[in-house]
C-alpha cells in the first residue's frame, strides 16, 4: 500500500500530465484544421492535372515517355510517409506494419525504401532494411519544395533504371477519427492510374502533344506526392489529437481513483486514531 505522501505526489504528477495532454490535444486540433485546409486547397490542381493527362493520353494516339512506360519489375522503391514525432497513437505503427508486410512478402533486397519522417527512418534502421533515401526534419506544413525534391530524386532513379516501380505508402485522412493506410503506384504513371477518357479530342496542342506530355508528367507526379504528404500530415495531426484526447481522459480517471484511495486512507487513519483515543480513555477508567 502506498503511503499518503506517495499518493499525493502521484495525484499531483498525473494532474500536470493531464494538463500537458490537454495542451497537446488543442495544439493538434489547431494544426489539423490548418493541414486539412492545405490538403483541400491542393485538390483543384490535382483534379485538373489528372483530367488534362487523361485527356491528353486519350486524344493523342501514341505518346511515349520513360515515366509512362511499365517494364518488368525487379526492384521496387517504397516511399514510406511517416512523422518526425511520436505521441500520435497508431499513426506511425500503422504505416510501418503495412511496410513490414510488404517487405516480407517480396524477395529480399527487391524492395528498397525511401523514407519520410524520423519515426520511419529509426524503425527501418533498427530492422536493418535497405534504405535508398531519407527525408527527416520535416517542415510543419506540407511542403511543395519537399515534394519536388523527392519526386525528382525518384524520377531520376526510375529513368536510370535503378528502380522499376515506385509505390507510395501513406495515410489517407478520411475524417477526424478514421484514417486509412494506402499503397499506391507512383511510377510508372500507368494507364491504370490515369483513366483513359475520350476527352474533347479536337484540342490544339501547342507546341505539340508530345512536349506537353513530357512537361505534364513530372508535374503530375509532384502534385500526387504533394497530395500524399498533405494527406498524411492531416492524418498525423488527427491521430495525435485523438491519442492525446484519450490520454487526457485516462489521466482524469486515474486522478479520480487515486483521490478516492487517498481519501479512504486518510479516513482510515482518522478512524484508527479515534479508536485509539477511545481505547486509551477507557483503559484509564
Amino acid at each position, binding site marked *: 500500500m502506498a503511503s499518503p505522501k506517495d499518493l499525493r505526489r502521484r495525484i499531483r504528477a498525473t494532474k500536470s500530465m493531464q494538463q500537458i495532454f490537454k495542451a497537446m490535444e488543442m495544439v493538434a486540433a489547431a494544426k489539423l484544421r490548418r493541414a486539412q485546409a*492545405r490538403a483541400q*486547397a*491542393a485538390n*483543384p*490542381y*490535382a483534379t*485538373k*492535372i489528372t483530367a*488534362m493527362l487523361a*485527356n*491528353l493520353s486519350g486524344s493523342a494516339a501514341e505518346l511515349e515517355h520513360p515515366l509512362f512506360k511499365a517494364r518488368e519489375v525487379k526492384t521496387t522503391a517504397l516511399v514510406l510517409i511517416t512523422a518526425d514525432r511520436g505521441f500520435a497513437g497508431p499513426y506511425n505503427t500503422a504505416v510501418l506494419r503495412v511496410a513490414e508486410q510488404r517487405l516480407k512478402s517480396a524477395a529480399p533486397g527487391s524492395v528498397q525504401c525511401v523514407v519520410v519522417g524520423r519515426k520511419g527512418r529509426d524503425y527501418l534502421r533498427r530492422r536493418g532494411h535497405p534504405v535508398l533515401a531519407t527525408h527527416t526534419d520535416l517542415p510543419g506544413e506540407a511542403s*511543395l519544395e519537399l*515534394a519536388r525534391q523527392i519526386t525528382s530524386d525518384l524520377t531520376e532513379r526510375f529513368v536510370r533504371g535503378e528502380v522499376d516501380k515506385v509505390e507510395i505508402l501513406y495515410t489517407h485522412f478520411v475524417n477526424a477519427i478514421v484514417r486509412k493506410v494506402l499503397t499506391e503506384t507512383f511510377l510508372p504513371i500507368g494507364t491504370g492510374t490515369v483513366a483513359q477518357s475520350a476527352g*474533347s479530342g*479536337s*484540342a*490544339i*496542342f*501547342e*507546341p505539340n502533344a508530345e*512536349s*506537353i506530355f513530357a*512537361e*505534364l508528367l513530372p*508535374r503530375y507526379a*509532384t*502534385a500526387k506526392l*504533394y497530395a500524399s504528404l498533405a494527406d498524411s500530415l492531416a492524418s498525423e495531426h488527427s491521430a495525435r489529437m485523438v491519442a492525446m484526447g484519450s490520454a487526457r481522459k485516462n489521466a482524469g480517471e486515474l486522478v479520480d481513483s487515486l483521490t478516492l484511495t487517498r481519501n479512504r486512507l486518510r479516513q482510515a487513519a482518522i478512524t484508527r486514531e479515534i479508536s485509539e483515543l477511545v481505547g486509551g480513555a477507557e483503559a484509564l477508567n
Partner: protein
Amino acid sequence: MASLFKLSILTPEKTLFEGDVQYLEAPGTEGYFGVLAHHAALVTALSVGTLTVRAASGTEERWQVAGGFFEVSNNVATVLADAVTVAKS
C-alpha cells in the same frame, strides 16, 4: 459588353483566382498569346512571364508565373501554374 469566359488559376498549393473574365494574356512557350471568350480548344505549356487578366468588371490584374500549363475548351479556361507571385503594376 464583352462576352465572358470562366477562368481559374491553380497552383499545386492553392486556388489563386476563380471567376468570369473578359480577356487573358499568358506567356506561352512560343510567345505571349491572348484569349477571349469562345476560343477554340487549346492546350499549351507556359514559360516564365506575366499573366494579365481583365476581369468582368474591366479591371486588370497581373501575376508572375514560372511555367505551367494553360487549357481552354468550351469557354472554361484553366491556368496550372508552378509558382505564382503578384506582379507589381
